[in-house]
């Protein structure tokens, strides 16, 4: 849609409705955009590719903001919708168990993305499309929030979970189920579990404190048998 420079736009922030957190908002010609992803300056190509993917192939209204030290991608929102979207939903009856720390969800997403990248890299585009379809199915069965559309799933697979605003509000049992199903899926694609090691390496992106906490939690969860 637009490729803009810093002087073209206005960046403000709004207060997150429930958390003590500011959300960066980009204003341009009366439209508002929220931050989706940030790339350092040396990843200009990746930033452009993602922006092109979102605008051309997925028909999204996106802004690519080019600054000297970084590139960022912003998606169009309406402010009232944004505030509504961000308030955490009440736990539904289908899932018991509390909301886990968002860090655990981020960790799971890192692992999921690592599997997905591996499928795409090693097994080719056809298999990665099939993987997306299987994942949709999986999210549907587990009634995961924020995964209703293919676009939403692709976002989960491509956006940096540590830099996006907030991971989806999934419950603890859902995370456990996702971890188990993810492993099952990986096994059916790779035919073995040699991918375990590579996927767990993705957790190195977390801070060492978060990583230790997540692994502690994983060790005690039913998903430990397949992953550790």
């Amino acid at each position, binding site marked *: 849609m637009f490729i803009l420079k810093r002087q073209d736009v206005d960046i403000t922030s709004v207060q997150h409705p429930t958390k003590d957190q500011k959300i960066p908002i980009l204003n341009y010609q009366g439209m508002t955009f929220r931050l989706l992803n940030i790339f350092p300056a040396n990843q200009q190509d990746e930033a452009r590719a993602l922006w092109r993917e979102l605008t051309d192939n997925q028909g999204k209204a996106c802004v690519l903001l080019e600054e000297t030290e970084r590139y960022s991608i912003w998606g169009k929102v309406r402010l009232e919708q944004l505030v509504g979207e961000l308030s955490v939903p009440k736990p539904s009856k289908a899932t018991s168990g509390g909301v886990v720390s968002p860090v655990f969800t981020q960790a799971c997403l890192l692992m999921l993305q690592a599997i997905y990248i*591996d499928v795409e*890299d*090693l097994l*080719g585009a056809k298999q990665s499309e*099939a993987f997306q379809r299987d994942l949709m199915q999986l999210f549907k069965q587990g009634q995961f929030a924020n995964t209703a559309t293919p676009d939403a799933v692709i976002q989960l697979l491509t956006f*940096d979970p*540590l830099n996006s605003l907030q991971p989806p509000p999934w419950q603890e049992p859902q995370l456990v189920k996702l971890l188990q199903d993810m492993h099952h899926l990986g096994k059916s694609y790779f035919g073995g579990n*040699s991918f375990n090691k590579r996927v767990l390496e993705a957790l*190195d992106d977390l801070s060492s404190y978060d990583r230790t906490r997540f692994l502690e939690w994983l060790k005690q969860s039913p998903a430990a048998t397949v992953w550790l």
Partner: protein
Amino acid sequence: MKKSSLTLFAIQFEILFGFFTLLFFLLFSSSATGQGYPIWYSRGTTILELFAFFLAMILCLRNAFSSMIVSSRKVWLGIGLGMLCYFVGNIFFAYWELGLKREPDVSPGDLFYILSYLFLMVSMGLAVFERRLNLEGWQYGVIGAVGAMGVVVAIVLSAGDQPAAPAAQLNPFHTPKAIAAPVPVKTPLLPVQVAPSFAPLVAQAAAPVTTGVPGWVVAIEGFLDPFKGLLGFLYLIADTVLLIIATTLFLAFWGGRFAQSWRMIAAATFCLYIADAWFKFATTRLPNYQSGGLLEVGWVLSAILFGLGAALEYRASHQRRASSRRRA
């Protein structure tokens, strides 16, 4: 990283080795005189082939003992053992032909070749059945066409099989005045019984010349001889099965780095098929065929390509795209 540079060296070495082999065959396979090939040529091809299979075995087993390998380790263990059996089979084959100066169309090596095919079929089959392929209609069509072609050629080549000669009439190792010119053959398009094309030759042959040949050699040949035609046919069918498996894999993973290694393995099975088809043709239709014909380069190339496939997969499994969207 030391490991990856070693793998890169293995890949480059296999490619150069392949070119060298091809040149060796191209330049000297026509050097046959009325006496057959010069001894240095026969030894040269034998050594090239033995070395190629040995190297392939090492590279495949290296994958089998690596915990990072993308295919399961069982697959590579099976392929590695298949290469080992082929290597041992070649030793017997060479001993039979060069050491004992017998016709090599059957030798105890065949027992190891059979084992080798069993290993290859089971392990490559595993590679297909343990993962989801998500193939499309046209891809099934391609695979079906490959299979049909392989089987048809095998049947055509086997159509002219000799009825097995009784053991008493085994061909003696050829004398200098034996015919070296190939007998022109009309390949029948349908598997019909044709007159044995070298019946006159068998008739000429006196009682087998067994001087200087151990009794057990004659006994083994006598035992294996009835299976001669069947074995050649079975090898071609087994090659076809391997070709189908490898084609399936590289079509299914088209575009991924995993497909690189299976493309090599598909090429390897194709070379194996070509060489086996030629050998079947030559031992059936050409009198006193001595191995070393140009198309036998397929055996060496197939070993080289198996090794190359193993090395490529090792590289793909160990050097990967950073599995993270975040980079420091």
